């Protein structure tokens, strides 16, 4: 599947395209199909996202999993500071990245 991701312009937060808007949680991201580039262009022009790009991901029971480690780290947070990730209470969150 294809995901569109970028950062929120004002806050810098990592965000994911849901199909109709943006979310901080990759589990809520939606498949952009072949519309990824068009969505990226349109959303950037509307300043709803900064630096959007399209990535490859696989569908898993826990939600989309980006193909590249860089985007998995973006989705979770720094592996060396579990307390600052989006899943601070989940001791196994880091293993999802690797």
């Amino acid at each position, binding site marked *: 599947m294809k995901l569109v991701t970028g950062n929120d312009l004002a*806050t810098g937060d990592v965000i994911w395209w849901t199909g109709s808007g943006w979310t901080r949680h990759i589990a809520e991201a939606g498949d952009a199909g072949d519309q990824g580039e068009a969505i990226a262009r349109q959303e950037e022009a509307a300043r709803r996202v900064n630096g959007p790009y399209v990535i490859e991901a696989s569908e898993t029971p826990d939600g989309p999993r980006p193909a590249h*480690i860089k985007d998995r*780290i*973006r989705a979770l947070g720094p*592996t060396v500071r579990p307390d600052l990730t989006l899943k601070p209470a989940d001791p196994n969150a880091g293993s999802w990245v690797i």
Partner: protein
Amino acid sequence: MYKYDEYDQSIVDARVDEFRDQCRRRLSGELSEDQFKPLRLMNGLYLQLHAYMLRVAVPYGTLDSRQMRMLAHVARKYDRGYGHFTTRQNIQYNWIKLEDAADILAELATVEMHAIQTSGNCIRNISSDQFAGAAADEVTDPRPFAELLRQWSTFHPEFSYLPRKFKIAVIAADEDRAAMRLHDIGLQLLERDGVLGAKVFVGGGMGRTPMIAPEIKDFVPADQLMSYLEACLRVYNRYGRRDNIYKARIKILIHELGADKYRAEVEEEFAQVRQLGIDPPAAELARISAMFAAPAFAADDGAVADRSDPDFAVWLDQNVRAHKQPGHAIVTISLKPIGGIPGDASAEQIDVMADLAERYSFDELRVTHAQNIVLPHVRIADLKAVWEALVEAQLAEANLDLISDIIACPGLDYCALANARSIPLAQKIGQRFADLGRQRDLGELKLKISGCINACGHHHAGHIGILGVDRKGTENYQLLLGGSGAEDVSLGKITGPGFDEDGVVDAIERVTDTYVRIRETGERFVDTYRRVGMQPFKEAIYG
């Protein structure tokens, strides 16, 4: 320490206003990201993996307790309670909001701090010797010159859109504690026939094509230094490559032209430029130097540190250096706890260090390029109290210049450019060599990790260096041996095929075991490597 006058303050305040306006134009859509990017970078604001990152300048690594407390305040109020001290003596915050950036800068300006030119293709923060003003071996305090350079380079009208970034280091001793010859320009201050001036090295750097700067001029008198540097930069601005970002640094220009041709071009330019009257008068250097006058040191009271506590004694031996003033010492606070994140400090730790500086170090702190903090002027009689406070704050790791005193870039945990993570590797190496007795037996061993070819973690200059690369989507690490960023400057060589994370830790252990087996008395690791070469280590690693 340098104190702003009304002119300095008005320039920094105007910069805050300018950046506020630029941020406003970006948020309102007047500026596209393409247009805004160079503007925000020129003020140290990056877009990183998780958020915006703000790099705040610590000019030549010197700051006072008020400034240090402000760094803690920014960490608490605008970030997530910590900051990361960098190899260029600056500090970075990882979780900044664009909408807060101008407010942060306004707060920093109240304590004479800023983020000016901490990124972008311009002259970056001037770096210097962290022991300046305290070391016995310096010819003069290099910081007044660094401050002159700070002013000269700030919003330099001609050199704000250079082919690539430009880093300058100034030292004033034969021992090089600032990796001077791995800078675009390295200045070594010295005295010749009673005249103060500088030996000028140009074209060093790390990155994907590491080079040691050749000497371009053996002596430039202090009163012509700005003219000479203006000539050096102008030749670079005119002729540096702009067709390929990887070949745009001045080291490539000098490599391609040859040092002799570059020197001749600079001389020709210098002949013109020196007539323009761009060098500040001697009175300006005198004005600045007066602010760096030695503090009112107490008379030597003959105090000797009480070594009865073995942990304190080890810390004294490892982290405390001789001071030029009898009765005083230079303390380095390690930001490299075993299993920790190199260079990171919490807001609470930053406050503790500020308090210690105010109480015990004439209100001065330094940031080192090895990502540690220095209290430059501590009375020997106060060392025990300082150490006890550091123990309390978990800042008393006695590992300065040992294998666990690792330089590491933020790597793929934070950085958008990285190919591999650096920090987890630093943590694993620290844990493998956690035994302090073993570390001390290995002696001075500078280990440096970069998460990509840009070499922010100085891997080329490590006695042992590690470079993280992306091998088909997985992290892979190359091992280098034999580099040095000190006065014995050299570039490390790759041992051979790379490793995964655990593999590189094992390989390092085979390297250190080999060193222990074959070293001669008094040899540091890098000395043994230079004597025997790569082969014995290679055999030990790859069998």
